[in-house]
């Protein structure tokens, strides 16, 4: 099954709703984010590489930060990306979204918009069909507006 862009947007919306439900909790930490992705990888420490997280260096509005993720993979029955997890280590809850792929997806790429409470790291982790795991990490600056209230 292929995730269309529309599905991706829906997923993004759900992820945002999920983050909202965590309001009032303490902000996530690097540890919580790491916990989240280690659960996803089954405890394996992902290697940097193969995953490309495309995100703005500076987000002018933390409410809707556009991000894209793609994974370098032949996407064959024997060798493809199974899932990609996105976590953010400064939101009330680190979980953002999980995208699932099969060999029939053709490419392992997804775009969504996410909410960032403050300047923080966004981490994308890909789990391959052979169980190997890869990641990319970007710090996104969430700006403070100039014209105060």
């Amino acid at each position, binding site marked *: 099954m292929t995730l269309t862009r529309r599905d991706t947007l829906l997923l993004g919306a759900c992820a945002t709703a999920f983050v909202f439900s965590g309001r009032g909790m303490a902000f996530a930490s690097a540890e919580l984010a790491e916990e989240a992705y280690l659960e996803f990888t089954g405890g394996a420490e992902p290697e940097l590489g193969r995953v490309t997280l495309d995100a703005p*260096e500076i987000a*002018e509005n933390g409410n809707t930060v556009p991000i894209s993720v793609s994974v370098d993979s032949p996407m064959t029955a024997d060798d493809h990306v199974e899932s990609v997890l996105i976590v953010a280590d400064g939101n009330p809850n680190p979980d953002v979204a999980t995208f699932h792929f099969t060999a029939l997806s053709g490419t392992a790429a997804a775009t969504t918009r996410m909410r960032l409470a403050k300047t923080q790291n966004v981490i994308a982790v890909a789990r391959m069909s052979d169980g190997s795991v890869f990641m990319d990490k970007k710090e996104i*600056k969430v700006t403070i507006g100039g014209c105060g209230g």
Partner: protein
Amino acid sequence: MMFGRMLALGAPLAALGLLMAPWSETRAAPEVPLYTEGSAAQSPWERSIYGARWGDRDSSAFNTLDNTNASPELPPIGELRPVPAGIAGDPEKGKELAANRRKGGSCLACHVMGPAGNADLPGNVGPDLSEIGTFGHDDSYLYNYVYDPRVFNPETSMPPWGAHGILTEEEVVHIVAFMKTLTSPVEFSDPRDDPETRPVPVEDRDGQDPLVNPAIWTMETALDLYEEAGPTGKSCASCHSPAEEDFSTWAASMPVWEPRLDKVLGVEEFVYRHARATTGAEWLMQSEENLAMAMYLRFVANGTPIDVDTESEGAKAAIARAETLYHTKLGQLNFSCADCHEDSKGANKWVRGQWLGESRGQLPHFPVYRTSRSEIWDIRKRLQWCNVAIWADELAPDAKVYGDLELWLSSKNEGLPLNAPNIRH
């Protein structure tokens, strides 16, 4: 989705168009029907649309676009106020005030203030004050510079914090105490924190992709409205061919001086007044219908270089008025348009983490979807919001001065292709 519908709608309308005189011919007629009475917007205008946080502020004692003589008078140059006696300056309190965004956006909006000032995304409209404490300025100089810098420089962009009642005398004393502690430059660990090296934002999203820009969906409404009969039984389609044909360049020629109303009409006001006079529909400015139709009429003209009339007597006079207003200080924060948007002043600099654009290059992408508000803004709302942000009372969107400013802006954006609707933060 909508493009399929556009085609489906376009075919019968195109057939209809063949039977009728094209609109471009009727356009040459001297008088386009316009409803010339009353306001084209909500009347009386209520600021409540912006919410209590903005609407509750009383800015009536300061200049607005329609009353540029309301603010207290300029102080004479060199007439320094005595530093109030008996108040001990507290650098800690001053540090908090300097970062307090409720106090006019904070000192950090425009100044780097050393490591103590907080190195997180300060602005650079004003000079770096990281070592102001070593410059040997006395208390009187610093106090007066914050209280009302116009006693030193009447042209300054800096607000008269004390004279305009944003900071109290005591608060200014605390800020002076804080400034005297600033003696070392900040070392930015990340080039994005330093306003001199922070990358300039690049907007490369495809604003006309409906999956990127929710404003595109609103044009479905415009397609329905185009063929929906108003109270007179007529619709837009009763007289006009499909908009893609009749209006393929029109929006780029707007706004236009309209002698019957003695003001400049933009697409939005024109849509209200023309529809009211023909189909009877009442699409008030900034209503959902008006925004949808105005956006659609620009969308079908996308790519057309802006080319407005600046030569008629009315247009010339409007542009001259706008030119004066552009340099007029407004609101409690006492900013002119030029203070923030002229290259020699605030433009192409950072006000905290936000980049200040120039007056050329913004207009062609309006109306925009604003992600921070989840709203579609036409250019008039953008201008209104500028007033709100500088703590001045905005006017109704159909105010004559906004027409003047829109025409002047269009002349500044001459030749740039329309690219609407777009998306911004």
